[in-house]
């Protein structure tokens, strides 16, 4: 199953969020956008949280590094980290090739989705990218 990037929500800081429901519980799958990866260029390192870590909305949950710079990763939702894509740091080329499916980073059991309303849809995010790019 392929994730449709036009249906995702985007943070100003370039994370994407895919909200799904599992037995009435909202699950957020979080990654970073293809635009961000292209801007970062030459990824060399990624630091991820442990499963079970409790995040507040807007909390830093990890970081991604390119040759030139370190970029923190922020969670747009609050909740418990229930899954971490632990193979990803050793396959950063895979993140580069496929940021929306293979490149998912963490899954969060959402207990605070109040910040979702401030996220951008794909069109608004593309507008932000074209203005900053």
């Amino acid at each position, binding site marked *: 199953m392929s994730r449709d990037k036009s249906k995702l929500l985007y943070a*100003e800081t370039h994370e994407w969020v895919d909200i799904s429901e599992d037995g009435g519980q909202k699950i957020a799958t979080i990654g*970073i956008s293809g635009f961000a990866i292209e801007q*970062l*260029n030459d990824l060399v390192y990624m*630091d991820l949280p442990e499963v079970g870590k409790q995040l507040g909305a807007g909390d830093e949950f990890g970081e991604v590094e390119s*040759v*030139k710079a370190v970029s923190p*990763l922020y969670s747009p939702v609050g909740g418990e980290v229930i899954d971490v894509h632990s193979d990803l740091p050793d396959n950063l080329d895979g993140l580069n090739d496929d940021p929306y499916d293979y490149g998912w980073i963490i899954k969060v059991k959402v207990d605070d989705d109040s910040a979702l309303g401030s996220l951008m849809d794909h069109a608004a995010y593309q507008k932000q990218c074209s203005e900053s790019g």
Partner: protein
Amino acid sequence: MSPAPSESQPLAATPLDRWHRSAGAKMVPFAGYEMPIQYDSIVSEHTACRTAAALFDVSHMGRLRFDGQGSAELLDRLLTRRVTDLPIGGVRYAMVCNPDGGVLDDVLVSHLKTPSETQYHFLVVNASNRAKIVQWIKQHLDDFPRVTFSDRTELTAMIAVQGPLAMETCKRLFTFDPTRLKYYQARITDQFSKPVIVSRTGYTGEDGIELVVRAEDANRVWENILLAGRDLGFAAAGLGARDTLRMEAGMPLYGHELNESIDPISAGLGFACNFKDRDFIGRDAIAQVKADGVKQVRIGLLPAGKRPAREGSIVLDSDGTAIGTITSGGPSPTLGRPIAMAMVDADKADQSDYEIDIRGKRSPATLTKLPFYRRAKTN
């Protein structure tokens, strides 16, 4: 990722600005200029320099000219390195220091002769320090009334061609064959009758040359070299690759390994200081450091794993005591692992194992000799 930073004051453009933009460069503000940080990928540009050759627009660097009697004596007073015996065609690396021995800038000084037999001295200074150094020079000109000082930066461009294939390719491109220059020699020659200063120097750890040309000739010279190296893998490279290359070569960068509160000896640049039978600004303070021994030294570290240690991270000894700071650090594309330089307490500089606090997480690192990368000598 963080939102894009906003920019403020107007930035200068180098004579190659349009070429960079048409090649798709990502431009960033640097020392008052808009400069290419990368065209495609820092890693591929870095690799081009290590395996073939890379071209760098370094026109943002300051180029200062000294004509007239007393030029060598003026520079001899301002620089840590002796200038009065610099022969025509010679280039030396030196520092400009304040009276306390703090480094105001690190520079290249050369002694040149034009085809019409005019001799002059030429100083290349860091872009970020150009205004400060120009001011410093002007403060000392009064004692040398016959010296004419001119800032040539905006009238000229500077291009570095660096890499194992650089010399062979550039051999035919100028009236004078630059392979006849030894390392740290320079000469004024021409390309199609347009003047070019060719200097066998660089900032990458590779063999190569640095060229100074008139601003209006910059694009032609740049494209001419790229064309000559097209089938050999030559690439234009931005400031990103320039930084990873100089880091691998263990070379200091002003603002990182060097600043006004570091003296040349502590920075590991004692080789660029001449004390015997001469005086220069900062001499006594630097000689004192040399006599007393340094408190801090510059070392090379290999952080374990893949996580780069960046500038500003604290270095700890094996007991967990903070003993210094990372001055430059990042991934080494050639070695495929992170590298870092640090200033640490001199009495802790001989340990083999350290820790680095990388944003709250401690990571082991081992001492290594600088440079991290040394090219295979071919001549």
